[in-house]
């Protein structure tokens, strides 16, 4: 399976990745090669097989009660934010 330039631009848009003009042909080629590798899966007969949902048989992800457990650490967590003001994360204006 081979991808073209438009496919890569569309995938990059869905993934919210800005690509430079020079990067696009590299991903056209790289992803096409990966999909050729993945096409080997077609050889396996999986008509009677359920998709694997967990790496350990019979296990499921555990749920916990929906209650607040942690302390309020907003100031600590926001130390890593690129831009904050009055405890709020700043982003470009969304609604005009």
């Amino acid at each position: 399976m081979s991808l073209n330039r438009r496919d890569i631009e569309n995938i990059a848009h869905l993934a919210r990745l800005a690509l430079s003009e020079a990067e696009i042909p590299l991903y056209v080629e790289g992803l096409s090669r990966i999909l050729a590798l993945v096409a080997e899966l077609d050889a396996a007969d999986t008509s009677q097989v359920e998709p694997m949902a967990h790496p350990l048989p019979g296990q499921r992800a555990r749920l916990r009660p929906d209650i607040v457990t942690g302390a309020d650490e907003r100031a600590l967590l926001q130390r890593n934010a690129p831009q904050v003001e009055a405890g709020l994360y700043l982003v470009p204006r969304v609604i005009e």
Partner: protein
Amino acid sequence: MSALHLKTVAELASQLAARAVSSVELTRAFLARIEQHQAVSNAFITVTRDAALAEAARADARLAAGQGGPLTGVPIAHKDIFCTSGVRTTCGSRMLSEFVSPYDATVVARLRAAGVVMLGKTNMDEFAMGSSNETSYFGAVRNPWDTTRVPGGSSGGSAVAVAARLAPAATATDTGGSIRQPAALCGVTGIKPTYGRVSRFGMIAFASSLDQGGLITVDAEDAALLLRAIAGFDERDSTSVDLPVPDYAAALDQPLKGLKVGLLREFFDRGLDPQVEATTRAAIEVLRAQGAALREVSLPNLPLSVPTYYVVAPAECSSNLARFDGVRYGHRCENPLDLLDLYRRSRGEGFGPEVKRRIMTGTYVLSAGYFDAFYLKAQRVRQLISGDFTRAFQEVDVLVGPTTPTAAFELGAKTSDPVTMYLNDIYTIGANLAGLPAMSVPCGFAAGLPVGLQLIGPHFAEGRLLQVAYRYQRETDWHRRAPPGFA
């Protein structure tokens, strides 16, 4: 008596307990070695000198007061994928190059509580995506056995830190071979535990159904001691398994007589370097000489591991890495025009080429119209591979084979074609897809470069793998060899 840096964790711990050496002395010795070899090895992203010396002084005080535990005062390094409170945690990426974690990963917290001293954070492939440690934003790591060659990845910094004796042990993670492959290429011991055995809390996520934390050490005894400290239930990881943690070290020395060992036929197939094959087969003979019963075992679906992985892992990666939005933490572009521009440019600038390639592969296989054909198909094949392992373990106790198809390759040799690089992990990915514990053990050299013997066991059979590795290492000394330029 050999120099301190050539000793194992167990040997250092007994010297600390006997007060023959102090933790501050040990920590200084390893910090000096890190400094001496950093320019060539590039094994570390961050060295936490001052904090390490302060932790060492506290450990010495505890030891002096008779309050030390089995690991108190032992210095180790952490892969820079584990969050460390107050210390930069980069995951090898520009995206997190200035991220200071507000909390400790559970693995880090447990070792800290055991009195272990952190020397620093080791280099790695960006977001653990790579098999050569060449995708790190902080530059490639060099193999101490031949500095023109790669150390393997993604835990290349941890493997080199232990191989070059810059740290007696290091934490690491394994999603498709990222502990075992670099351990093999650097001549050290690596263990990837069963999925769910070690908490993933605070371990930056790549592919959540495959990621597992573990260790790189000099030998199996050290792996046993440290695994006991980091393993066990953690309510903060929803896939953590609530089973007691055995005393792995206590069971190491049981004889191998009667052990049923399966040779993985598919691992001795085309593509295996003849010298690596000969070295691996000689190692398996050492197990036979100790009374293990060998038989060949076939896992017919195993050759589909690599294509299965390159659907499942990128799919999970594209979902996990969606959190990097340039808003709450991580890299943010200059002067965004609008919110979409902020997302696109922050991510485009913050991620390197391999990470972008995997995010896009994952986005594609999960996109409308392709989900069934790619993602569900891969999860069905994953079920077949897992079933092959289940059947094999009805006949044998442990599966053995080479860890990698070749010894360490040259820097830059495989960076132009992603698929060529991905095929390095052809023997390691199966254990991740099936959630199984696996190890790599140094078993000799091919043209002067280390070779690893891989052991794979049933779920939660870490103790059995450690026992086999220990008994093998009792008969051999490959694991005690240090690279000449770093001895």
